């Protein structure tokens, strides 16, 4: 159970988030959508305690992010930020093993190795596990970072634009893996995603932000209407139902 109560955030003079309230049940995939600058990334960063709260309260299963020790939270929530530039030279295996740090605190056990091996396989990284990340393509790097976050094995997983740098095939593979993780391991995944159709195809819930406020919230079917999309993005799209799923057409 995630509770976000009355949070606001100012960055400089700009009010980025304004009195945001919502709660989410555990499990499933929630997509946060909205135009650029709507406050999506700031919301994720606040939830993951990367930024301090100006006011309000956020809790995960009754753990208040403002009061709970950081290392306890690291087993409860994990976050992948938008830009990941790591100047340190690490191999994929080392990077993903660092995702286990909250559990092993520097002394990896058998279980940690097993978990990392599983994740590497899931993310199709096992063949390049010993390569340094600075030698990989952008897509491979992105998958390695996602693998690191997944290996953290937290109940709540926050991903800020996880499909950055990924081609169609890998983007779909990642989304399928996330779906699998959410369903089979009962994880809650909250992601910021720009491609509305990708979001619609794999998520359960939508939270739409505009100018720092939640303007629409609900199941995918409820939110995916022409009226709502125009409200959120200020653009007109056609919503068509194909094989029982709603799709937005905005390319022409």
């Amino acid at each position, binding site marked *: 159970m995630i509770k976000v109560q009355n949070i606001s955030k100012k960055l400089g003079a700009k009010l980025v988030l304004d009195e945001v309230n919502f709660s989410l049940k555990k499990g499933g995939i929630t997509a946060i959508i909205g135009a650029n600058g709507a406050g999506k990334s700031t919301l994720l*960063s606040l939830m*993951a*305690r*990367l930024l301090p709260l100006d006011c309000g309260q956020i809790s995960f299963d009754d753990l208040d992010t403002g009061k709970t*020790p*950081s*290392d*306890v*939270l*690291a*087993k409860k929530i*994990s*976050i992948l*930020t938008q830009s*990941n*530039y*790591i*100047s*340190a*030279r*690490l*191999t994929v295996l*080392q990077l993903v093993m*660092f*995702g286990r*740090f*909250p559990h092993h*605190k*520097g002394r990896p056990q058998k279980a940690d190795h097993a978990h990392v091996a599983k994740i590497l396989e899931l993310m199709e990284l096992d063949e390049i596990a010993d390569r*340094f990340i600075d030698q990989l393509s952008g897509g491979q790097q992105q998958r390695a970072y996602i693998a690191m*976050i997944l290996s*953290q094995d937290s109940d709540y997983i926050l991903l800020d634009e996880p499909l950055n740098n990924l081609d169609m095939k890998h983007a779909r593979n990642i989304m399928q893996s996330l779906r699998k993780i959410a369903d089979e391991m009962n994880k809650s995944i909250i992601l910021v995603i720009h491609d509305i159709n990708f979001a619609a195809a794999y998520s359960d819930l939508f939270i739409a932000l505009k100018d720092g406020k939640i303007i629409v919230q609900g199941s995918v079917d409820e939110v995916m209407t022409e009226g709502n999309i125009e409200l959120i993005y200020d653009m007109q799209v056609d919503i068509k139902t194909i094989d029982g799923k709603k799709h937005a057409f905005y390319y022409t």
Partner: protein
Amino acid sequence: MFLKYFFAFIFLLFLFVFSLFVGVSDFDLFGAWADEGDQQLILLASRLPRSFAVVLTGSALAIVGAIMQMIAHNKFVEPTTAGTMDSAALGILVATIFIPTSSLMIKMLIATVFALVGSWVFLRILRRLPVTNPLLVPLVGIMLGGIIGAVANFIAYETDLIQYLTVWMHGDFSGILRGRYEMLWLTFGLSLCAYFIADQLTIVGMGKDMAVNLGLNYRTIVSLGLIIVAMVTAIIVATVGMIPFIGLIIPNIVNRFMGDNLRHALPVIAYIGACFTLICDIFGRLIIYPYEVPIAAIIGVIGAAVFIYLLLRRDVHA
């Protein structure tokens, strides 16, 4: 694997023993073993302390460089490119002026505080620099060091302490004797501390967001790292004097084949730092035998050349 470590150890041992034999007065190891006269005195009072000092300094400076590179997220940072060394020298100078009777310990403590403040100022300036241009970081750091060095020079000039300052500013092992180098063993302890938090330091190297995500207290680890850096720098400046670039070139060479996972890399960095400094010291003692060239000049030349190579290696940089 075992064989590799074995040979590495033998090589270091060979360098170490070899360095015991380099010196003006005649000396043979077995003579020192057999009788207790001059031979043993030379070994215990001069040769052994010097060789230990070289090994400790080389490995500690290399480790400190690696730590700073993690904290600053930049491959070109080390004590001389971040104002840390100059701050420490200024600290010793200030201690000498205001508490002339102070012991070496007090001077080092004051130098540590100065080095801490200097590094902290450097990190503050770093925050205002764009991450996209990694070269700005050492550029600003060297300038900062230059400014602090100029302040130290000014004070020393006006208080007639230029002679002393020159000694601290130019690292030289020739003054190392029993009773005047033991503080350097502290750097060994500090290096062990660094190894103890190697994983945390590597995570700090992945950036603040990642560190917080993994539940690390970012500020605590950065502060711990900086304290280790400042103490090691202060001790070395006070006992040996400034030696540039070891902390820059050794970690950069090691990370090319080992990466930056400090848990694995730190021992190798320390080892190569020790070997490199020993070789440079032996070279400096032999080239104009029976005189010697200060270590800072030799490593300044080699280090600067390697630095230029590292800079121009990737031609189109940012």
